[in-house]
């Protein structure tokens, strides 16, 4: 199945782009998907302060992902 990954804030730099479409084997959760990526990127995506959205709703990392879903990785907001 195909999943769209969106990298916000500093994670865009870590991923080398704001978005990536990848093929994953079902069943997969968000954590599985992160673990299938480059180790450095995986570490950045699963840092404790990163939150996850599945199709625009905040979810936990063990939430399972379906074909066509959009998964967003959200680092802390910048504040100021």
């Amino acid at each position, binding site marked *: 199945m195909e999943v769209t990954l969106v990298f916000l804030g500093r994670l865009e730099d870590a991923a080398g782009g704001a978005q990536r479409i990848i093929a994953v084997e079902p069943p997969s959760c968000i954590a599985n998907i992160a673990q299938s990526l480059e180790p450095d990127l995986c570490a950045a995506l699963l840092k404790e302060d990163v939150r996850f959205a599945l199709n*625009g709703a905040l979810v936990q990392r063990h939430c399972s992902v379906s074909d066509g879903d959009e998964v967003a990785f959200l680092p802390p*907001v910048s*504040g100021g």
Partner: protein
Amino acid sequence: MPGEIALVVGAFDPAARLAGFAAEHRDAGAVASFLGQVRCGDDVGCGDDVDDGQALELLHYEPLTLPSMIALGEEAQKRWKLSGLLILHRIGIMCAGEPIVLVACAARHRRPALTAVDFLMDHLKSRVWFWKREKTATGWQWIEPREQDRTDLARWAPAAHS
């Protein structure tokens, strides 16, 4: 919705927006507002700083950012019985001196109007999904959260991260 809550692409005219808001709420008695402008400076805060001649970029995540602003507006409305509320937040690339954010609250009395503006700013800064990067001599750099943002939030009773 008790008022207008919007993301704005490109510069906007805060004085004209505020004038319209005050006129619309002429009966309210009290109109408090906050305007954040991009600051040309050397520390991060509101307005946000950019180095001289440089730029600031504000990014959002479409499915979450505006909904989280609307939820925040509804919470303020519920807490302080506002007669009107305006939240305009810019996204995209902006330069020193340009407006980033305008918040205005109208109420019968000054205390709720002023407190609601204060609340909205603290939460817009640390709870709404915006990421900022600054263009410096060495390229774009992400702005990280500050300890001050947590302190600011701690002034209010818990409000869910939306």
